[in-house]
């Protein structure tokens, strides 16, 4: 347990497992502890995964997982936060107030996974067109079954 959340290691790398409610508190504590920059925010859709063995006891696996990477330059230390996000309420607090650099990354996660970030200043699609339907990196979004969606394109037969 670190900052009140379970800690594991993955291939020698430190991983913390806060819940969505603990996320802001944990990141704030880490920031005050010298983790000066948010390297990356991404997500994983575990819908098709055969069964996960790397979660600590007490953490229930959910469909989505938000992955946040922080870096303490002075100590040369990295830490990864893996937040379980349930499929029926894919919503987490935004880290924008702590690390403004997460803005584009959170927009990307929202765009490609449909996870929403409370408190984000401009939660709109970033890579896909504004009027796109669906979230392409979800496992149930198949390749090859997508009708081409372009604005004002005439229907060609």
């Amino acid at each position, binding site marked *: 347990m670190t900052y009140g959340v379970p800690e594991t290691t993955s291939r020698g790398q430190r991983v913390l497992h806060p819940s969505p409610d603990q996320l802001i508190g944990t990141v704030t504590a880490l920031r005050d502890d010298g983790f000066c920059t948010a390297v990356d925010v991404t997500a994983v859709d575990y819908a098709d995964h055969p069964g996960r063995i790397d979660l600590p006891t007490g953490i229930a696996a959910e469909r989505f997982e938000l*992955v946040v*990477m922080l870096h303490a330059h*002075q100590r040369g230390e990295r830490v990864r936060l893996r937040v379980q996000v349930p499929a029926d309420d894919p919503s987490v607090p935004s880290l924008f107030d*702590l690390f403004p650099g997460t803005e584009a990354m959170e927009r990307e996660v929202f765009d490609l996974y449909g996870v929403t970030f409370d408190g984000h200043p401009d939660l709109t699609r970033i890579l896909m067109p504004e009027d796109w339907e669906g979230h392409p990196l979800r496992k149930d979004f198949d390749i090859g079954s997508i009708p081409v969606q372009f604005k004002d394109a005439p229907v060609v037969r």
Partner: protein
Amino acid sequence: MTTGTHDATLRDAAEAPSDATTGIDMGSAERVHRRDGSAVLRLSEAEALDQVSDPDNPAADERMILNMGPAHPSTHGVLRLMLEMEGETILRTKPVIGYLHTGMEKTAENLSFLQGPTNVTRMDYAASLFSELVFSLATEKLLGIEVPPRATWIRMLMCELNRVSSHLLFQATNGMDLGAVSMMIYGWREREEVLRFFEKVTGLRMNHNYIRPGGVAADLPDGWRDDIRRLLDLIRPRLDEYDTLLTGQPIFRQRLQGVGVLTPAEALALSATGPILRSTGYAWDLRRDEPYLAYDEVDFDVLVGTYGDSFDRFAIRLDETRESLRIVEQILDLMPTGDYRTQDKKVTPPPRARIGESMEALIHHFKIFTEGFHVPEGEVYVAVESPRGELGCYLVSDGGPKPYRMHIRGPSFVNLQTLPHLMEGGLIADGVAIISSVDPIMGEVDR
């Protein structure tokens, strides 16, 4: 100033005023937040259309939303900017990206680990070996295998040469954006020499698929040392010519100095890395601070700027080219002998000669190239210093032959967030210089 030195701007990291050991208020994001409202334009397309000014109302004419790109010569591909202008002055900016989005992270989930490098190499097409490297390092970390020393050193050699070619491309496009069109021709000319060496080694000028999980695709060709020496003799004096042409040129300096200034705290808060972070005087380079490959065995300097302006970013890249050539020169002497890929049978196919005589070898070869090798379940994040900053790969495996999830942390994508802050209050003509100094590669931004 007409000589090739610019010591006043660039200093060695050891004497830098504010490196990682001094007290920058790291946690402070307040200044970015204060500026966020005034620098970043948060406006959808539909809202922008509503703001088309009314020709009968002179007051509404003063502010306008200007669209720049995506097909503008100085936007380096397909970057599009929505600029809120007051006269010639930029107030707020919104970078609009996604025009080159081809779902490469989704594609990666349908390619085996051996096929993966062909996909990621197309992200940052100006520095493609770095993407292959970071993907291969992540896969090897999941597999838990070590690559032979010669493979590591070949990777280092090729990556440093790739950094040279990428920075030469920057010099070319940066010169062109600022009106020094002859610089464009010179930059491309020298870059082509490096690419010619790549072609000799990998078979391709770009998108090499050379660095693969387990090592590299082929050993260096005979006479590679002579080729490298010829490159070193050719490029070094040409870099001094760039100094004469650009660095000491008063018009060029005036276009860049004091344009697009960023502070170290702002750069950190915005997660900027690479030359943008170093230009603020913050000495941070993963090759030195988190050594991977064999960077702890070669000697090089981390270059930092003083003012965090466009000129510092230009000068850092020019001098980093020299540092990379210095590393390449050391590799000439330090290159070990041995295998260029791991002999782990699980990852490396049997040699061609064995396939003709052994049925098992044939089957094994077939299995590796059709099904692919299985990678143990787990997740890992690996980062390398690409010419544009921290290039990371987050790789999740479910135990199968294909990645369950492959995410590339592209430095261009993250660094693009600094653009509104750099452009705020500047002139539109300076905007071109600033986009160029951020050096985004849109293939990596959009993926």
